[in-house]
């Protein structure tokens, strides 16, 4: 970067034609732009389906890259940098962007050219980012995105005048419609040629690192090029008048929340169940071909069924990704954050944590992946750490089984409410309280934030496109399968080995059976026997696995709420032990997928380890207390 020396004048003259790193040859192109400039839409447009997502090393910022196949230049790699307002490194995103642009990011090639995307509706402010980017001296093309919208709303931008001021080519595009993209092809072709002896342009850039001088510079250029800002979106204002209204706003918010649950449970649950049936039937079919040896057992009982127990959640997870995508792309996500901020603040989190925590009621995996919209790292980590306390759908099979077996179906409160429903509801409340208590605890201890303000930009409402939603859902789905897949495979193989060694023994005599016996003294104070111990051990892969394990151990049909299994459990467990078991499941981190995703999102094993330990200890203590208290009352 150019070190500027003149202070006070606000403007310094610098030579911008610095030698590119690989003169004349472009291999890597960086996509730079502020948040909400439509950068991701353009990235999807330019790379199509063939994009890769990973974490940058050592940080929690996602790296998106792909071949420029969307404009027929598959020989070039496009790197999508995180959305940033400036290159001053006060955020992790900006630090990553600076490192990548300087070629200082390990594993990421230094970019040879830059596509700078600016939202043409708000060019006056968006131009502020152009100053530090142009100062890098790389071949740059400035793209005025959403130019179609700007023009229909009466805005004007003179690309030629802007190009003259900025010393680089400027083009109008619309990433949503895919117009103006030929300017990118043009730019890349011309820059791939050996550079002609281009005259060194002398360009006036503001003093680096000074927001005020950036602003004066950007305003100056806007004025000189006669930029005319379009009228602000009429219907965004009108919609906000309703959706952020004191009464209608929260009401609509409530409707959205209820709609999500309806969709996830009335559509997602049957989909998941159907998918599970297909997976199991498929496993049995293939098993039939393999005969009855240990190979069949390992492949089908071990791997296939183990992996299937996690895969059954895929329909629900994808539905949640879709739902979060609609909220985000439409612009309502920011409004939801605005409405819920006051309540979330009371536990030390901010409004942006609300939708992720809400999704965690169905599944913690999409919830944790959705926390990326929370800029503040400590707030984001706190949200990640509490999300698995929300009652996810994998807890329901064991809740339903235990409640059906042990809680009498009596009416309470004058017949309005069933006792079984009351117990179920209190388990939901318990998870909620644990999440909020933990959030409060984290925010007043290890994740205390000094003074990070809550700044929320409210983007204009937009209609989400099918294209961008389907890309998002497939991309997120792939990340989940890739990330959780390997670990789940390892855990299922390990559990199979532990349940089948020594060979030709039943589950109780296997390693895991002996381990279940061995931990019995530890779990007896909770009211659990060794069979429950085995169930707890085998369900580390996914919570609902315990129902199947108990079915095997009691020699009964493991189908949820099966009467045979219920009778066997009633015979073997006390009411106190049964309630302690559901409380244990309310708190314990029995989910390998979640641990794998937390590892990915925090980019370290430290946080999943802390989370697993904390939740297990809490589960043990709570189950112990439940067992002892109920025993006290019954006596």
């Amino acid at each position, binding site marked *: 970067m150019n070190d500027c020396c003149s202070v006070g004048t606000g403007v310094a003259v610098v030579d911008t034609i610095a030698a590119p790193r690989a003169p004349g040859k472009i291999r890597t192109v960086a996509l730079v732009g502020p948040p909400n400039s439509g950068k991701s839409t353009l990235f999807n447009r330019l790379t199509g389906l063939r994009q890769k997502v990973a974490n940058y090393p050592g940080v929690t910022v996602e790296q998106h890259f792909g071949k420029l196949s969307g404009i027929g230049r598959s020989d070039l790699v496009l790197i999508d940098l995180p959305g940033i307002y400036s290159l001053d490194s006060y955020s992790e995103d900006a630090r990553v962007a600076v490192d990548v642009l300087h070629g200082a990011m390990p594993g990421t090639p230094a970019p040879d050219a830059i596509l700078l995307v600016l939202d043409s509706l708000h060019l006056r402010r968006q131009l502020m980012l152009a100053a530090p980017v142009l100062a890098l001296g790389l071949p740059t093309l400035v793209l005025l995105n959403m130019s179609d919208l700007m023009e229909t709303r009466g805005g004007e931008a003179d690309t030629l005048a802007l190009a003259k001021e900025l010393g680089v080519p400027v083009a109008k595009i619309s990433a949503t419609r895919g117009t103006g993209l030929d300017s990118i092809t043009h730019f890349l072709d011309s820059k791939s040629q050996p550079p002609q002896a281009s005259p060194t342009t002398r360009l006036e850039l503001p003093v680096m690192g000074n927001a005020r001088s950036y602003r004066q510079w950007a305003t100056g250029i806007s004025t000189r090029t006669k930029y005319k800002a379009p009228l602000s979106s009429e219907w965004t204002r009108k919609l906000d008048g309703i959706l952020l209204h004191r009464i209608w706003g929260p009401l609509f918010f409530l409707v959205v929340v209820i709609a999500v649950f309806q969709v996830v449970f009335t559509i997602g649950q049957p989909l998941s169940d159907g998918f599970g049936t297909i997976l199991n039937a498929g496993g049995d079919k293939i098993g039939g071909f393999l005969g009855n040896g240990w190979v069949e057992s390992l492949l089908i009982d071990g791997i296939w069924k183990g992996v299937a127990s996690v895969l059954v959640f895929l329909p629900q997870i994808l539905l949640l990704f879709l739902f979060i995508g609609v909220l985000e792309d439409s612009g309502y996500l920011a409004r939801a954050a605005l409405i819920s901020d006051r309540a979330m603040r009371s536990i030390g989190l901010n409004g942006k944590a609300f939708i992720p925590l809400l999704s965690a009621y169905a599944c913690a995996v999409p919830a944790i992946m959705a926390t990326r919209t929370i800029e503040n790292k400590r707030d984001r980590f706190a949200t990640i750490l509490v999300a698995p306390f929300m009652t996810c759908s994998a807890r329901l099979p064991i809740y339903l089984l235990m409640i059906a077996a042990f809680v009498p179906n009596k009416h309470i409160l004058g017949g309005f409410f069933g006792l079984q429903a009351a117990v179920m509801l209190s388990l939901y409340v318990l998870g909620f309280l644990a999440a909020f208590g933990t959030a409060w605890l984290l925010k007043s201890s290890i994740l205390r934030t000094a003074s990070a*303000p809550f700044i929320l930009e409210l983007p204009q409402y937009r209609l989400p496109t099918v294209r961008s939603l389907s890309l998002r859902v497939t991309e997120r789905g792939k990340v989940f399968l890739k990330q959780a897949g390997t670990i789940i495979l390892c855990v299922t193989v390990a559990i199979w080995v532990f349940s089948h060694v020594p060979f030709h023994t039943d589950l109780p005599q296997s390693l895991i059976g002996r381990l279940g016996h061995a931990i019995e003294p530890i779990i007896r104070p909770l009211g659990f026997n060794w069979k429950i111990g085995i169930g707890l051990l085998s369900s580390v892969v996914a919570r609902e696995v315990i129902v199947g394990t108990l079915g095997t151990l009691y020699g009964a049909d493991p189908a949820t709420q099966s009467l045979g299994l219920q009778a066997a459990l009633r015979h073997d467990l006390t009411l106190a032990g049964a309630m302690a078991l559901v409380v244990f499941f309310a708190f314990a981190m029995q989910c390998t997928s979640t641990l794998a995703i937390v590892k990915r999102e925090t980019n370290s094993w430290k946080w999943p380890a802390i989370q697993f330990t904390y939740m297990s200890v809490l589960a043990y203590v709570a189950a112990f207390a439940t067992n002892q208290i109920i025993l006290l009352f019954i006596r």
Partner: protein
Amino acid sequence: MSALSELRVGTAAIVESLDLPDEIGHHLMHMGFAPEARVVVVRRAPAGDPTVYSIDGFEIALRRETARFIRVAPQPEGPQ
């Protein structure tokens, strides 16, 4: 001169200074809250806080705890 948080919905003002730590101040300036910028109070969240401000054609919500450190000169003529 008064604090941004004290302005009523519908009023406009010119930003004068930010009494915030450099890091936060710079971030807010990059988002538009720079001296000489004109800011309009658009609406408050249903719960009364945060408040939505319009600056440079963008709508940005800030909590009262942040907005009270932004010094502004109210504009008598009101919004647009």
